[in-house]
């Protein structure tokens, strides 16, 4: 599916600008930026969660090396937040339609409404992933350090981490709902 313009354009006649206010040429910017924001914001959250819990685990592991494998759970949950961002970004990217060549003119296929809804989806999912990752990081850091001193805290730490992970899940659900909204069609 070519979206660039090549020699075909030169050979056509009767060139018309069919971009309209409902399907402007700038609509894909918002959609793609939503996908990008979902990915890199969720990645920021996942990176924060991984690094902060990793520091706690490294500190705890010096005195209790036997508990390190159990303490890796916050790291896995932070990785899952990154995957939420990946899912949202891929779903949005595949819904953005390139303009198609039709009888000598390039017709847009992507409405501004769709661009706005995909931007909203990406920002919702991305910032929620950031929030979840930050929560997982802080809880994982201090939770693993406390786990090293009191192994009975394991279940309590997991429960708190699950609530933190749920925030990312809320963002994923809302992002999927936004990106599934009906987008309308461009004028013929």
């Amino acid at each position, binding site marked *: 599916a070519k979206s660039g313009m090549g020699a075909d*354009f030169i050979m056509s006649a009767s*060139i018309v600008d069919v971009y309209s206010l409902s399907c402007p040429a*700038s609509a894909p910017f918002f959609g793609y930026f939503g996908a*990008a924001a979902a*990915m890199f914001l969720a990645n920021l959250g996942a990176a924060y969660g*991984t690094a902060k819990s*990793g520091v706690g685990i490294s500190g705890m592991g010096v005195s209790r090396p036997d508990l390190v494998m159990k303490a890796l759970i916050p790291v896995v949950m932070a990785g899952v937040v990154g*995957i939420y961002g990946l899912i949202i970004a*891929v779903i949005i990217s595949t819904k953005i339609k390139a303009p198609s060549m039709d009888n000598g003119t390039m017709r847009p296929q992507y409405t*501004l409404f769709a661009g706005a809804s995909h931007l909203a989806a990406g920002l919702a999912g991305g910032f929620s992933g950031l929030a979840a990752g930050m929560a997982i990081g802080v809880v994982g850091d201090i939770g693993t350090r406390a786990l090293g001193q009191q192994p009975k805290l394991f279940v309590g730490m997991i429960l708190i981490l699950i609530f933190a992970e749920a925030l990312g899940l809320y963002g994923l659900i809302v992002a999927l709902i936004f990106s599934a909204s009906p987008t309308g069609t461009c004028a013929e």
Partner: protein
Amino acid sequence: SERSPPGSCSSLDTMAHANMNAMFPSGGFFDDWLILFEGISPYALADVGIGISIGVSVLGAAWGIFTTGSSLVGAAIKAPRIRSKNLISVIFCEAVAIYGVIIAIILSTKMGTPEDYPANTAADCQSPALLKATWPRLPGDGAACQGSLYMKNLLFAAYAIFNSGLTVGFSNLFCGICVGITGSGCALADAQNGTLFVKILIIEIFGSALGLFGVIVGIIMSSPAFIK
């Protein structure tokens, strides 16, 4: 391009004058603020995206390398045995920079040059006022005015390439910082207890997966687009 005559600077006059006389490289007129996104040359936007993908990725790799490297040499003062094993943390950070280079090369192969840009040769394609009179059709059915709309159709590809570079660059930035911090913890823990190295390395592997997520999304985003 024509300018407003001196003394005619009321805002309404300027808007009307801009409407008639401002034609953007993408073939649009100033009708609403969305033209701000359409007014940037698609070649420039895509090239900035490529620059971001490699520049910001390398920034993340560098950040990670100095974080982990400084802890490594500090901890190795009292435990020199950790030197060679913990270089793997530095390599994980370097991989982040390699991801940025790969995506930058892939995106730059999608770039064409404006040599194919059809020139506006006819006299009635030079004046924005005449173009505006027949818009959305081009004067003379556009046989000699193809350049007026050429750029607008490149914008889709430019947006895809720019945002793909943005995704990859910033994902790799955060991944590099994460792997650096975790690698620092790994070196310090390894210096105190040698059995901890492999366990803390698992955390670094989770961290470096984040850069891969960014690369995957970047490739999926940019695959339907090219600017030729």
